[in-house]
Every structure is written in structure tokens, then in C-alpha cells.
């Protein structure tokens, strides 16, 4: 198969990461923020895969596996927290959780 250019794949990863970052900063709803974090994790995983393919070693995909595990754990706990927050604040507005203000 014709090889995929390395640079452009990395550019894809960078762009996805940037989009995820924009989403985290921009969205006010907790659920959307969590989604954007997932996008960022995914982009990072893509970067690892690209690196692993470039060197032809398994390490890239192993890292991707661990990232996946991490994402799973994080989503589980994160969603539990979101449910808890919703019951406490009666809203999913992240700006409502501002007790650290001051």
C-alpha cells in the first residue's frame, strides 16, 4: 500500500487536539466539556499510533491501549460526578460550580 504521509497525519492529530481544547474552554455544559476531553484524548492516541507506525514497533499501540483504559476509567468516574453535581446544583452549568471564587 502507498504510505500515508507522516506529517499530514500528525497535522490531523494536532487539529483534532485543538478542536477538543476549544470545546473544553468554550462549552458551559459539563457533559459537553467531558466530550471535548474525550476528543483530546483520542487525538493524543492518534499521535501515539502514528509514532508507533513510523518506527514500526508495538509501543505506539500499547500506549494507545493504555490511553483507552484511562479514558474508560475517567469517563466512568466523570459521569458519576456529573450526576452528583447535577443533583446538587440542579443545573449542568459549569459556571454554577464557583465556590472557589474569590
Amino acid at each position, binding site marked *: 500500500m502507498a504510505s500515508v504521509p507522516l506529517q499530514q*497525519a500528525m497535522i490531523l492529530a494536532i487539529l*483534532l487536539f485543538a478542536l477538543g481544547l476549544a470545546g473544553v474552554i468554550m462549552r458551559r*455544559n459539563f457533559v459537553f466539556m467531558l466530550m471535548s476531553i474525550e*476528543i483530546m484524548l*483520542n487525538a493524543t492516541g492518534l499521535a501515539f499510533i502514528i509514532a508507533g507506525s513510523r518506527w514500526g514497533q508495538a509501543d505506539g499501540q500499547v500506549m494507545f491501549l493504555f490511553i483507552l483504559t484511562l479514558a474508560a476509567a475517567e469517563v466512568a468516574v466523570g459521569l458519576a460526578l456529573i450526576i*452528583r453535581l447535577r443533583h446538587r446544583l440542579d443545573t449542568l452549568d459549569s459556571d454554577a460550580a464557583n465556590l472557589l471564587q474569590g
Partner: protein
Amino acid sequence: MNATFYVAAVIALLSTLCVISRANGVHALLYLIVSLLAVALVFYTLGAAFAAALEVIIYAGAIMVLFVFVVMMMNLGKATAAREARWMSPRLWAGPGVLSGILTVQLGYVLATGAVGPAALAPVSPRDIGIALFGPYVLCVELASMLLLAALVGAYRIANAELERR
């Protein structure tokens, strides 16, 4: 192969854009699933078939499904969607857009000035991955399992406490 890569890349980018710009939660989640599938295709074009499979099965298939279940459970409704739409004004995009843009430029710069190796990308088989997992990375596997255990207990506890209080 290149064409597949480009198409998948474009789909991934577009659907990610849609994820961060939708007002309805479930819509955004669905777009996210599409994005993940597109990225899985990109993995395949890069020669990481095993990773592609994992992406589809675990990420899109388990994690996102969990997301969908919870979002549906929350019963967000039309009012939430309207509020989300109201919160997404163009003025809102400026700051984050600028920050992300600068970050992109920086990373691109790093990429451009970094050492460039051979352009060829070699595929890696699941067999190599398995050997690596049970070889040098066996400790990480154990740690990963502990992490999952902790997440399990933690998520259970956090959600349960809420129920008990109610």
C-alpha cells in the same frame, strides 16, 4: 490508501467540529461516535489494525454508549438545548479560537522543524502488541487493571451515595 486516509481525516474533522458546536447533547454524542469511527479508519490506513478495532469496540462501542445512556438518563430536553444554543454566541468563540489557533501554530512549528524520518509507515500486527504487553509492559497492564478497579469502585460509590441520600 492515501485517498482513504484523506477522506477519513476530513470526516473526522468535520464531525468533531459538529460535536463542539451542537446544542443538543445526543446529537453531539452521535457526531462524536462518527468522529471516532473515522479516526478508527485512519488507524487502519496507518497500519494499526488492532488499534482500529479497539477504537471501535471499546471507545465508540463502550465508552460512548455509556455516555449516551447517562445523557439520556439526565433527560435534558428542549429547554437545555435552547439554553445551550443561547450560550453559543460568536463572541464566545473568539477567545478559545485564538488560544487553540496559537497552540496549533506552535505544534505545527514544532512538527515542521523536528527531525524528519523516512516517510514510510509500517504496519504492526496484533501479535507484536501481545508480546509487548506480556513482556516489557506487563506491570503497566497490572496498573491499568487496578485503575479500572478504582474507577469502578469510585463510580459506584459516588453514584450510590447520591441515591442513599435521596
